[in-house]
């Protein structure tokens, strides 16, 4: 006879009290598991991780979900969330179940330096806090003040990662060309905390968020432009409950509006077949689909093609939910499927609008050795080149 597992209502109640308020709503239909991108790849994690079962273990307070390959597999792409017939807040449930382990001090080894750097430096990339604004040298960006309309909040990744810094610079240039009134507080900012919250370190998230809110409120910030959809998510959805209420836009939304108003236009021809990968946090989580497409189509010479799975059905790059720091073996990376999608469409350039997506897709493109046929670009880079 099988081992008999003891139901623990105490454990269940602890998970629920950590934020999994809709855990019991789940009727275990399994649609989430079938829509999960992990079903599209083989391997150990794919076999271990079943989001339906993970929630079931949570409902009964049973052991078995703490395994790293189970608990930290979810990339929080939201494919299950938007399709759940019971409207279960699946990502909140994942976050809360992670919290029960992380709060007890059991963060997986690969994530410890990340949390440590966030504590010490206010960014996950082990960059010294004083170097946060180094990339801005020579760009003449004013500090945010009463005279500037927007605060430009630049993602930690684009502050410290040399590849990603290009994105920040391109965005700055585009905003300046379009005459947007904005300033920065980069040197004083901390990480938005979106990802560490998804990883279950609620305490650390609160610390980061509170310091940012204090800074923003103190400076009188009303409107924020983000470079990353993840920061957009944090400011829009996580901060209000902590007292941070701002009008937040992703740069693509703002540029889209400016394009319509004729305040920005593109003149350098780019005779390429271009496709777009919808970042989960821009698309499914924030419902921004059109501005990117309008901007790309406004570039002379661009032939825009859609990927097979696009918009609401976009496939995750695997960079969310802390997976950007996880090591998945070749052949098990969602990014590879995305590169293949773009190559199948015979696109010359795969554009996206998220620093995590860029990191994941760059890796996948290099791993698959498709660099000769496909170029991965952040949207701001492409737009900047055709100004």
């Amino acid at each position, binding site marked *: 006879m*099988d081992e*008999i597992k003891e139901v623990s*209502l105490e454990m269940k109640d602890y998970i629920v009290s950590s934020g999994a308020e809709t855990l*019991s709503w789940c009727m275990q239909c399994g649609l989430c598991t079938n829509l999960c991108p992990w079903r599209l790849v083989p391997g150990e994690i794919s076999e271990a991780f079943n989001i339906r079962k993970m929630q*079931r273990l949570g409902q009964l307070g049973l052991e078995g979900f703490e395994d790293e390959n189970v608990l930290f597999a979810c990339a929080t792409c939201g494919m299950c969330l938007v399709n759940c017939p019971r409207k279960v807040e699946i990502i909140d449930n994942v976050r809360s179940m992670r919290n029960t382990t992380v709060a007890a001090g059991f963060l997986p080894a690969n994530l410890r330096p990340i949390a440590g750097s966030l504590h010490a430096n206010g960014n996950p990339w082990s960059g010294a806090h004083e170097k946060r604004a180094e990339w801005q040298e020579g760009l003449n960006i004013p500090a945010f003040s009463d005279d500037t309309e927007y605060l430009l909040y630049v993602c930690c990744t684009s502050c410290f990662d040399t590849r990603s810094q290009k994105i920040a610079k391109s965005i700055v240039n585009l905003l300046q060309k379009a005459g947007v009134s904005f300033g920065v507080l980069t040197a004083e900012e901390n990480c938005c905390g979106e990802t560490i919250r998804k990883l279950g370190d609620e305490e650390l998230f609160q610390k980061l968020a509170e310091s940012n809110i204090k800074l923003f409120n103190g400076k009188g910030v009303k409107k924020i432009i983000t470079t990353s959809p993840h920061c957009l998510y944090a400011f829009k959805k996580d901060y209000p409950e902590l007292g941070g209420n701002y009008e937040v836009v992703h740069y693509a939304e703002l540029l889209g509006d400016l394009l319509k108003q004729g305040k920005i236009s593109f003149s350098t021809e780019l005779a390429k077949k271009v496709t777009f990968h919808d970042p989960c946090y821009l698309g499914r989580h924030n419902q921004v689909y059109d501005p990117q497409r309008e901007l790309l189509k406004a570039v002379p010479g661009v032939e825009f093609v859609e990927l097979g799975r696009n918009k609401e059905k976009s496939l995750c790059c695997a960079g969310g939910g802390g997976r950007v720091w996880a090591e998945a073996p070749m052949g098990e990376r969602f990014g590879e499927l995305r590169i293949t999608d773009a190559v199948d469409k015979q696109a010359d350039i795969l554009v996206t609008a998220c620093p995590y997506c860029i990191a994941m897709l760059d890796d996948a493109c290099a791993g698959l050795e498709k660099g000769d046929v496909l170029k991965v670009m952040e949207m701001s880079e492409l737009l900047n080149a055709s100004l």
Partner: protein
Amino acid sequence: MDKKTGVYICTGCGIGESLDIEGLSKVATKEGKVPVCKSHPFFCGPEGVALIKSDIENEGVNTVVIAGCSSRVNYDVFDFGPSLLMERANIREQVIWCHPANDEDTQMMAEDALRMSLAKAAHIQLPEAYQGQNMVKTILVVGGGLSGITAALEAAKAGYETVVVEKSPVLGGWMNSLFKQAPLKFPYDSPEDVDIASRVKELEAQSGVKIYTNAEIKEIAGAPGMFDVTINQNGNTIQERIGSVILATGAVPYDPTKLEQLGYGKYANVVTATQMEEIASKGKIVRPADGKEVQSIAFIQCAGSRDPEHLPYCSVECCVESLKQATYLKEQNPEAAVYIFNKDMRTPGQNERLYKRVQQDGAIFVRGEISEISEDDDKNLIIQSKDVLTGSTISTEGVDMVVLATGMVPTTAFGESLVAKAEDSEEVEATEPKVEEILKSNLLNLAYRQGPEMPTLKYGFADSHFICFPYETRRTGIYAAGSVRAPMDAASSIEDATGAAMKAIQCNELTAIGNAVHPRVGDMSFPDFAMSRCTQCKRCTVECPFGAINEDDKFNPLPNPTRCRRCGICMGACPERIISFKNYSVPMIGNMIKAIEVPEEDEEKPRIVIFACENDAYPALDMAGINHLSYNAWVRVIPVRCLGSMNIVWIADTLSKGIDGILLLGCKHGDDYQCHFVKGSELAGIRLGKVAETLNRLDLESDRVRMEQLSIMDYDQIPAMIDGFAERLEELGPNPYKGF
């Protein structure tokens, strides 16, 4: 009636282009000596209809034969009133739409169709409606629970005198035992106060309703429109004349003492759902063993249900009842732990909303088989169960109380079986149809030769034509409603009772004008018995699926025309062929067979007669035509009211005429029968089994007669069915009786 026949050959819809109309006309005028024969390109148009009308009015035509489309279409256009005999020769769907145009075989087929129609028209007579003595339209409702009250209210509100008989002292039935009722109103997510008292009040205030409580039915004699009902109330006998009856005696919970494996009777804190209602009605939910307030509870669904050892079926409402009871406890203590162990949660109708609400309140649902229920020293119960969703066996912390959600057993499932008795006394031949399962459950006490109650279906539920016509039963004018018919919840019972009231009303109205009820609504014919030739063999009384034929004192069959459904099964059963309808009889079909032209052997044109059930097979043949499927042109189709009306003599008539083969197309039979008359196709099969032996003895291969089950959806299989049979006949060679 002196017949003057007019034949009207329509040349529209491609008929004129496909057939030699002049040749066809000669069948009527030369062979049939018909005085009036006309053709028109559009008989169903105003001009065509006017032409026929004019002949009826000016030429004295009183028998009309229209050769054209199927009788299943344009019947309203060609309705010239009840004093006219109407016959349709189907040369469109079943001839020109499935056979090549201007082809010798197609022409022969059309001519035979007309010959058969002429033979039929020559034979039939106008039916006269049956009028019984002292007919009434009062509706009797047996059982005063939710279904009975609903049915009675619906009937009374529609203007029918209604009599309600309830055996207990008060109306309300099962609903009286509830603390709250499952939601019947939007938003369907929380229990409601039981509203049965207001329904009882409404019924008591309703005019035209007579209520007998503390009363039982002693006897129901007679037939629809004229039932004589004897009611016993507190020892007093009351007589009522009744038109139609609704059986709404409901169901009772399964006996929990049989569920010791789930701890019932063994552990004090294991109770049934019924007991849970009592506990909740008393106020605070406390457990029976020690009066401790319940903080945690486990509901065990399918307690004895969907279990071959107990009740093999799902009782439909137990899941909803447990969800409802879970809210009782959550109301008392929102922090209370609720487990619901289930095989599957089944929440029909709007009850998914209640399910969702209980989920959202935090109940734990465990799907899987219970392996053990045990008790700890504090009389808490520990449940061990498979959890299918994690694939493991789990064990709960001790819970204060366990509630067993037991299923329902219909009141018709109790009582001594008539069948068992029959089996003891005589060997039942395998070639006989399965005897109806009737238990002496003391509900209706019918004075019927066939037994005192409704026939029951699987698991003892009262009769229903459950596949096709759930409200129909095998006892004309008696309709089962609510949980006596099938497991159902309150919302479904209300619907079901309303439906049954409608059927009872239809029965009253149709019976009053001498019309048949479903499925031959509008049919005024009924069987005549040439009693002087009866041999008292009892075939008709036994085979009538509707118990229409009793026996008189001298053991002669005693037909009850208002119980009759006009299927003709008695006519098919009778070996002396003494039973016939004015417009449907053994010789009528015999004459149709004789009308078919059978070519000589050397012409190599074999002939096949198809006896097709009018309800499914004949429409399926039409469907094949509509879809222009083509099949062998040797066939000649004779529609029959039901394959069960097939008299064996037709087989002999057909084969002795030199026709090479016979194909019988009837409905699906067996447990999930689709026969409109329940037993017809099955009986035809049994009769055929007996004829095979005789055929072999006469040197006629029994393969020459084949029976197939065909539903209207299977029309696409018709070509293969017919062509396959024709191939087999070719192998057998010509009928040796050809030319005799």
